[in-house]
């Protein structure tokens, strides 16, 4: 059996931590193991103690999105877990280098999957992320194709990926590909972060996106030539 992905949770409300624990416990494959629980960022070790950090964006009443680059630089993969669903906060979180954004309403259905995807440097797009991408009007936003936009819209609307596939008369795999490609395009824009490079490199490796479809920026060349050295997870 494969080694489970290790996760740490930074959350100041014990009841939420317990909820996350129960979701992780009830995963049939036991694919994630919670190795650390902390109430603030000071509780995390400088050397990554877990593959993924589940980070509540609001700790003791303060937004901690600006702390994400520090965590990412230390080698952590971050999955933001938050009660906020404001598209601007979602975008800022991703821009700072978080792998995925899971709103508290989506936690039960998506948190474990998002953690697993993050550990593998693969894109995971929740409905709240799709919403933020659809609402994005910033001049520097990446250009999405008609199909990518349509897949994101139907996913945001609440359809299952199988239903989206039926609606668009394409395979479920192609739906995943469209949504992942849209996410990968975001990894190629904005500020640079090792986690974004890793996500992009993995997307290219998986054939989700070709280097030609990516708006290049400085660190991309480095990433493509030299695969990320951040501890490759066991899966």
């Amino acid at each position, binding site marked *: 059996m494969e080694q489970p992905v290790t996760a740490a949770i930074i959350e100041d409300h014990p009841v939420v931590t317990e909820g996350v624990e129960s979701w992780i416990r009830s995963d049939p494959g036991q694919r994630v193991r919670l190795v650390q629980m902390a109430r603030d960022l000071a509780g995390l070790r400088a050397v990554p103690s877990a593959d993924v950090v589940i980070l509540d964006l609001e700790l003791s009443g303060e937004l901690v999105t600006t702390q994400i680059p520090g965590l990412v630089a230390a080698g952590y993969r971050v999955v933001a877990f938050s009660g906020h669903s404001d598209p601007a906060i979602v975008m800022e979180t991703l821009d700072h280098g978080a792998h995925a954004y899971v709103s508290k309403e989506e936690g039960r259905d998506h948190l474990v999957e998002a953690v697993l995807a993050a550990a593998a440097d693969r894109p995971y797009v929740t409905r709240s992320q799709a919403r933020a991408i659809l609402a994005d009007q910033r001049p520097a936003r990446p250009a999405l194709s008609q199909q990518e936009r349509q897949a994101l819209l139907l996913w945001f609307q609440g359809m299952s990926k199988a*239903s989206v596939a039926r609606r668009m008369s394409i395979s479920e795999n192609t739906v995943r590909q469209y949504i992942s490609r849209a996410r990968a395009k975001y990894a190629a824009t904005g500020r640079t972060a090792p986690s974004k490079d890793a996500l992009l490199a993995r997307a290219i490796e998986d054939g989700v996106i070709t280097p030609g479809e990516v708006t290049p920026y400085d660190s991309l060349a480095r990433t493509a030539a030299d695969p990320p050295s951040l501890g490759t997870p066991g899966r």
Partner: protein
Amino acid sequence: MTAVQPTVLMSGRYQRAFTIAVVFLVAGWHLAGAGGQLLHNRSAYGSFAFQGAMWLVMALAITAGTVLVLRGTPGWRAAWAVAVIVLAASIAAAAASPAGQMLAVNWGWGSAGWTGVLVLLRRRFVELACFLAAEALGILGVQVWDGLHRADLAGFLALLAWSTGAQVAVAAGVRALDVAAGQAAAAARSEHAARERAATAEIIRAARHVRWLALQESAVPLVAELATGTADPADAQVRTRCAIQAARLRRLLAEGDEVPGSLVHELHASADMAERRGVAVEIETAGLLPQVPGPARRVITDTAIAILTAARSRARITLAAVAAGIAVSFVADTGAVVRLPVTGEGVAIEQQQDGGMLWAEARWNSR
């Protein structure tokens, strides 16, 4: 719906009044001015019958033009058909007038010019200018054909200045009045919109207060039961109660300044009814939503009510800004296909059933 109608009506009413004034001007001119001149000079023409026939042709063209402009701004084909007929009739009448006396006995130039003003009034100004120039050139052509003297040219220029000048002035005046009426209507519209926004805000505030009071009776006891352990989260019924209260709380939080549109407000109202039946409803928006006109909103909310009534335990409503409009979608466990309102008012409705889940989308396009 009320935001648009009165002001459009108001601006439309003024424009119609200006149109009718021009109709009276043209009809009066043709009957009294041109008709009077025709009768006064009847002995001067080679064939009075021909002149009379041309006068009648122009009278019919003016009648047709009147019908056209009273039905709205005429299309270029219809407008120019009338214009060309009066142009031809007036020049034929001028050509059949005795040489040397043409300007003195000419009755058609003025009528033709005014008819042009009537049918081309609300089309591009350059069209009216072309028409008036063509008419003047036609008359000048007849004059040249008859043999042009210096005195004739002076008379031609004087007539040109007086009749064409008056026609251009009237056309420009009506345009200015149109613009003024449009501005007045826009001012009234923004005032109306502000009033409606204020009224909507008040309704939302009142509804929120009512909901807050309701929370005191529903959510607060549930939380108390959970805290004391009398309610067990393992119980499916307790979980359903939690889901409903959570949906209500979320909505209470969402109803901030970010949802100014009355469509969102109306959908919230529709969701209320379903929630009382125990259906957990979530409503989310993506992007800056456009204002949807009343009749289209009604089609969308009817769709919402049909689906929410059929939903068994949960429903998700999303509103997303899409190119040129809005996509309002519904995902609910209806168990079967729902009979939805017919597509109309610019709203296209589609649905897809997958297992027990229904997806439906009402898409409104502004164009």
